[in-house]
């Protein structure tokens, strides 16, 4: 057997209060796709960042093709043929796609500090051709669709071939969490093609995907390697058990906890709602009901969601909560009406990174932590600790900045924000499980069921069709800003994903 493309031994990384990596071992063979699985906060991103020189480990060694190396920067890592697509998209929005692709490794495209646009275009085109993308290299990046931008990222990471004579190691940290199923298929095709000349490390919380595309899966738990699985014939359950150390619940979507919905008076009733990207939306959600909205990018479902939260202007239409007409002129008005919203872009819109877990959790429902007009620190502490415990949020303490938590734990805090007040009537969830591990997801689902049981109405823009089908009582399919059709989705009578896909196009 040839030398591994990459090997890690005993890698350790401490953060204040957290041991992110605690002696991790990992082997990446040549021409294989290695999956990396683990709960939120298991240390996956930290490990991968150490591999591209963004995190300096406290102890441990990294070997590239058998040679020990010290990686101090992205450039050094690229010199060894290692490149990474980050968990959050990282392109410069106001540059052209071509510039993003060659950024940091312009080579012949820049001579003595001067741009040669023709060469740049050619170089970028070569990269795009490699992965079969048809976008215009000179288009501004922020004019591209989400999926196209993901392609640009991959085209960019493949530039490391130019920097190293050896077959590259391409690291993909949760690339699928923001993609649609069709785009995921394209991506997987690319990954399989990459295997011909490169090694790939692939991270995803969707275990079926991991098993589908990877040759082998390494599992991390609490910053340690706990084992590995060859994917042939493996099932997600097995993998999940390794990740959390025990067998998870059978009922992922907690379907037996679903409540019967009374449909006398809808909690939310929307008639003829129109805005810039959607038109004539009719929508009823009963108390305790979970309504899923599915649709491709650009179907307008996200904007409907934002409009219902008062974050997007509307041109026409009427919204009633429990029969009472409400004016959604601001997010504040929506909050006052008992509406909560969990945005998809957690990092920029969902949370205030430098503020503490406690402050983030009580940002909306200030009343919950106040006595009269004054903040009661004791009250807040008790409240926050209760919710940290209840949602098993992994944090060194309630005063830790939320930005320091892993993505999944951040999301739980953001969700908790709407629950601490205890007066929520309608929850708008835009990809609430994006980036969450399977366990955390399951907990979010349980939470949604519990809330539904207490009469909270939920609008869910699901992360995947399966999730929508699993959770929703009813699914609306949106295309081009209109509701194309409505599919009932009761327990026992769930539609198949294919049924929905038919309607979406």
């Amino acid at each position, binding site marked *: 057997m040839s030398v591994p493309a990459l090997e890690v031994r005993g890698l350790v990384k401490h953060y204040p209060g957290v041991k992110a990596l605690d002696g991790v071992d990992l082997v990446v063979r040549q021409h294989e796709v290695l999956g990396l699985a683990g709960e939120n906060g298991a240390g996956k991103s930290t490990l991968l960042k150490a591999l591209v020189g963004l995190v300096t480990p406290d102890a441990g060694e990294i070997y590239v093709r058998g040679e020990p190396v010290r990686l101090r920067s992205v450039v050094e890592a690229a010199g060894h043929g290692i490149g990474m697509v980050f968990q959050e998209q990282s392109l410069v929005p106001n540059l052209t796609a071509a510039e993003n692709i060659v950024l940091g490794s312009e080579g012949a495209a820049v001579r003595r500090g001067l741009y040669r646009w023709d060469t740049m275009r050619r170089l970028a085109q070569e990269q795009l051709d490699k992965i079969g993308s048809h976008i215009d290299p000179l288009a501004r990046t922020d004019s591209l669709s989400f999926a196209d931008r993901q392609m640009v990222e991959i085209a960019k990471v493949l530039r490391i071939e130019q920097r190293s004579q050896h077959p590259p190691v391409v690291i993909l940290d949760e690339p699928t969490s923001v993609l649609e199923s069709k785009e995921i298929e394209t991506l997987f095709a690319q990954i399989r093609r990459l295997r011909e000349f490169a090694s790939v490390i692939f991270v995803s919380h969707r275990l079926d995907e991991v098993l589908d595309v990877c040759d082998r899966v390494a599992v991390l738990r609490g*910053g340690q390697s706990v084992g*590995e*699985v060859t994917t042939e014939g493996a099932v997600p359950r097995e993998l999940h058990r*390794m990740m959390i150390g025990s067998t998870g619940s059978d009922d992922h979507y907690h379907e037996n906890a679903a409540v019967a919905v009374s449909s006398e008076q809808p909690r939310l009733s929307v008639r003829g709602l129109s805005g810039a990207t959607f038109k004539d939306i009719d929508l009823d959600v009963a108390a305790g009901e979970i309504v899923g909205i599915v649709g491709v990018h650009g179907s307008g479902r996200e904007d409907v969601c934002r409009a219902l939260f008062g974050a997007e202007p509307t041109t026409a239409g009427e919204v009633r909560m429990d029969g009472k007409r409400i004016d959604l002129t601001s997010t*504040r008005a929506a909050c006052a009406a008992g509406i909560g919203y969990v*945005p998809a872009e957690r990092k920029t819109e969902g*949370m205030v990174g430098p503020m503490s877990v406690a402050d983030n959790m009580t940002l909306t429902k200030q009343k919950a932590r106040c006595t009269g007009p004054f*903040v009661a620190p004791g009250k807040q502490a008790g409240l926050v600790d209760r919710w940290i415990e209840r949602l098993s949020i992994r944090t060194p303490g309630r005063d830790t900045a939320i930005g320091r938590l892993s993505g999944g734990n951040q999301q739980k805090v953001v969700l908790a924000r709407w629950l601490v007040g205890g007066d929520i009537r309608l929850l708008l969830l835009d990809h609430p499980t994006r980036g969450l591990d399977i366990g955390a997801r399951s907990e979010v689902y349980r939470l949604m069921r519990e809330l539904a049981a207490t009469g909270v109405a939920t609008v869910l823009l699901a992360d995947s069709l399966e999730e929508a089908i699993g959770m929703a009582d009813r699914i609306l399919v949106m295309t081009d800003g209109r509701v194309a059709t409505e599919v009932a989705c009761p327990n026992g009578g769930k539609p198949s994903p294919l049924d929905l896909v038919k309607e979406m196009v």
Partner: protein
Amino acid sequence: MSTPVAMKPAAEPATAKSTARPAARLTGFMPLIALVVLVAALTVADPDFLTQRSLTAASRTAAPLIVLAAGATLVVLCGGIDLSIAALASLSTVLLALWLPDLGGLATPVVILAAATIGAVQGVAHVLLRIPSFIVTLGGMSVLSAVALVVSGAGTVRVVDDTPVAWLDLYLGGYVPMSAAMALLVVALIALVLKVTPLQSWVSATGYSESAARLAGTPVDLVKIGAFCVSGACAGFAAVMLVSRQFSGGPTMADNLLLPAVAAIVVGGTAITGGHGSVWRSLAGALVVTLLRVGLPIVGVPSAYEQILYGAIIVVAVALTLDGSKVSIIK
């Protein structure tokens, strides 16, 4: 079938208490340290500098700047900037001087109220028109200056009977200038209100990430308007202090306090990008800036070198006081 190759016991979840490290605690005191170092340096340069009389004079001198900076700090914490404070203070001195004869003691609250209103109007313009606060208040600055020039008849307005504002020029116990005590009170009041109400988290959230704050239902617009309003009120109060000291109001009287006030905020270690900082820091910053403005020439630094030293020291002071761990990208 899956084949587990190795199994290790799960690690204990990390639940270590977060304790501030000594270094982190030190950064909080940096503005104070900078202040002490500066006083020490000035004393070394001129041993006469460190006398009770001289410190009393310095604290009296610093009072209007402290108040101006404290108000503007709120705007900066919200992520904006208020360039109109000095012009607004100038206008307020004129208004106060004009109204004192008719309104007497009532003139003070009326002027502060008027200044607060003008501040709020700028806040509303910023929020509703969606123009950067830098531009709104830059425009506000020129408009207010013009208004001040016109109402004052382009000249200073003498205050013949200054009894209604004279209390500000007294000394508490013979040593503490009343204006300095009032400035301290203003700072303490703002700090207290922020601390004990939800305002602190609203202001910080707005400053750190406006969109996240808005989507969390924070009254972002109101918070911003409020910040501008308080900033205006503080400018008005600073004007009262100036009038009590100058016995007159002038259309350009406080204009030159703009950059020192902004410098005070930044030297205090408040992030100019918003979110992180406090009015206490601005208090220390205002004292540092005042000592630089007044102390350097008094201890005999020649004019040209004074400017060079001022520039250099202020940059170094900011380098010391700014907590790099709280602000990821420095623009």
